[in-house]
């Protein structure tokens, strides 16, 4: 490949590097060069949020970030979120499972990273705030109600209030 640039960063706690074209997005770099296929690409123009990853703890769109912009930063993908263990799901993931907050699972990685970033900063976020922040992530399966419930329940694990129930959608 002509005209490549070295980019080196920490991803999910481990050092990683890749030689990429300057135009390569972080999403493509993670998926193709580093084989971290948990980050999904839904639109490639920054609207759907499926590719959301954390850069130094902040939720960003990996399809609108160049791989070279990640140089020297710490990236967290869905595979590296706390509790991303199928044998022992963490509180956020377990709440999603309990509330049936995912169906096809394609948007889920971006929603989990977004929710984790939100709750890490604002563990007391209310339903309205959760909806506001998640409005940057499209989901076509759930209608969002169960996602909001799951995030409300997960707040406790981030130091937020205990889950009171109160899902009014059923």
């Amino acid at each position, binding site marked *: 490949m002509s005209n490549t640039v070295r980019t080196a960063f920490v991803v999910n706690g481990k050092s990683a590097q890749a030689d990429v074209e300057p135009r390569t997005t972080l999403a493509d770099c993670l998926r193709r060069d580093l084989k971290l296929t*948990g980050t999904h*690409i839904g639109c490639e123009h920054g609207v759907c949020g499926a590719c959301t990853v954390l850069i130094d703890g902040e939720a960003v769109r990996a399809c609108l970030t160049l791989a070279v912009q990640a140089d020297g930063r710490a990236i967290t993908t869905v595979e590296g979120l706390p509790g991303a263990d199928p044998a022992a799901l963490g509180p956020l993931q377990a709440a999603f499972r309990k509330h049936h907050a995912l169906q096809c699972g*394609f948007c889920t990685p971006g929603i989990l990273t977004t929710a984790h970033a939100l709750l890490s900063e604002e563990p007391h976020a209310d339903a309205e705030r959760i909806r506001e922040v998640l409005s940057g992530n*499209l989901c076509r399966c759930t*209608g969002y109600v*169960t996602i909001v419930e799951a995030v409300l329940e997960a707040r406790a694990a981030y130091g937020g209030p205990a889950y009171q129930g109160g899902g009014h959608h059923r």
Partner: protein
Amino acid sequence: MNVAPNTLVGQEIERTEDLRFLTGRGIFTDDYEPAGTLHAAILRSSIAHARIRGIDAAAALKLAGVHAVLTAADIEGVVPTIPLRLAPIKGLERYLQPVIARDKVRYVGEPVAVVLADSRAVAEDALELITLHLDPLPAVPDWRASETDAALLFEENGSNVAVRYSAGFGDIDKAFAQADYTRCETFRAHRHTAAPMETRGLIAEWDAAAGRLTVNGATKVTFFNRRTLAKMMNLAESAIDMIELDVGGGFGVRGEFYPEDFLIPFAARKIDRPVKWIEDRREHLLAINHSREIDCELEIACRRDGTILGLRGKIFGDMGAYVRTNGGVVPAKAAQFLHGPYRIPNIKIDVAAFMTSKTPVGTYRAPGRFEANFFRERLMDMAAHDLGIDPIAFRRKNLITEQELPYSIGQLVPYETATEYDSGDYHAALDRCLQEIGWAEKSPLQGKRVAGRCHGLGLACFVESGGAGPRENARLILETDGNITVNMGSSALGQGLETVFAQIAGDAMALPFDRFRILHGSTTLVDEGFGTYHSRAVVMGGSAILDGAKKLIEAIRSAAATQLGCGSEAVTVQDGQAIGPGGRAVTFAALATTAAKAGQTIRVDGTFANTKRTYSYGAHAAHVAVDPRTGHVEILDYVAVEDVGRAINPAIVHGQAMGALVQGLGGVFLDHLIYDQNAQLLNASFADYLLPTASDFPNIRGVTLQLRPSPSNPLGAKGAGEGGMVAVAAAVGNAVAAALAPLGVNPTELPLTPPRLWRLIEDARTTSRKHAS
């Protein structure tokens, strides 16, 4: 034989699928990439209707990393056309889509050439270097332009009108002649599409030595697609494996046989390398089936007391440029479902399907139903208002009663036999819906202004079909660890079928949930499968599991009898063991291991055949507030009630309802594929094609009823994927109309965007001022 305790079906079991999806371990199409893969990008027409004069790919072929540019000229003989899978109304077969354009292009987005390159980026670069010489022809932007035949999309057919037919029963002219009251209105449902979060994609692998083709990324109807592809590529069906990976949403559009389903396997064989194609979002919005674009003239005849005497209508369907696999489903179902859950003694619907120079139309969740319920329920509210009858009383008068079920609606669809609504208590579902939304308490708000906004309540009743035949199959295999693998002909498109099928199998075999592994979709798993559409996976596939479980228990008893030296009638099966006379037991694992040592497998094929449809039913109610200064509508409360007969996993059923409901609300207010007069799609991105977000519709509720199981399958289940969607435009349309009735606004056209409502409000004001002066 012991009876399986009913412990799993009906419970909200947490989903098997979630463990991989929540941890980034799913394998979606683009997550799979064999070594040596080339990447495809597709050159698509940028002009709606044109003659192709030439394709110059010389510059593209010179670009480093480009391996080939394939066009129609690379296909030996006749370019194959994509066959009809459903709804083969006579005449439609003249408008099938070639897998790649040869002489003409007929919509923006039609494939013209395929680039194969080392990376997708290079393939896309190469697209820019191909010169496509097109001689533009007049665009055909809508059915009215189509009907004139001024510009013919298929000259050889002499007309753009693909099909016209009439359906109905009774004596419609007599009904209208005898009626105290009639009203005719014109309605419109707009073009939109499903937009699943994962775009389409395929990876085709050709094994030249073995003469075998593997297509990864297939779903929905993999056996039909294999049959189609085999014919097109002159291969035996058995030489092709269609493999289903994780699927990022279907909703009707994904998994049908599209041009790329030929082009990518064809390219892989041609170049003898694996070829991957992943659709980008712009491409998706131009290329995947659109849906819903239906105009309707509908006329109702009633007695003075509100009794419906007849319904007479015309359906005008915009099919786009080609008739694809779904045939005439969209206009045909829009016609059929005008009947709804009501007693309508006389009905006549004229259907016409028109070819236009736009993206072809196919099914999107609740095809035809979303539209038909909007048309009928809006007209019923108008009739009730004219007759001075409460809209609920009007519906109660005409709603079919349980005593009248099963209720034949005759043959309203030309390619189907007569059908009948199976079971239900339609009045109970309506009552439940009214009670949930608090209709009686809220009704004083009808048309009232509160803090500047106009409040309205709207209601709609529906029936919804599911469970299409003819068959579905399940193969149950006893593994040497004593667990059971269940191979399904049904496809999983994200609904949670691995979980639901394990629940059904678990109860049928009286074994815990985690003893089952569910595999699905791929053509390697069963000999014959029919797939997942028309809300049929659980009804048909689940029933096939019941049959397979029965047979597996028999096979286990027989194998155990041989080992225990007794007759199989002396063997009982319990807790994963076969128990013979004197309590001597042999475990499932031991039985399978013994069989394996003899080179055998304990394996059975279960099947379920059915020609009867299931009819779920229910009611939706909406409470809205409309801001007359902006035309913005807020959903203050929304209740969707559906009787699904039997809910295998109520959480999953509820999830289907909530997701469908929000998709439906998107279809009412947001999703809109906007074309100009040149048939150019103006909003082929998610920045412009708006979908519901988390903050748009927080106030929605769903109630799943299990009042009346379906009599036509052993589970008693009815299709549950669409009931949350079918009546959304109808209920919201009626609520908005009720809110704005004092202003003289009566919306009949979707979507109900703020600009459209604002315009209607302004026009009504102007009219009323004129009348006043």
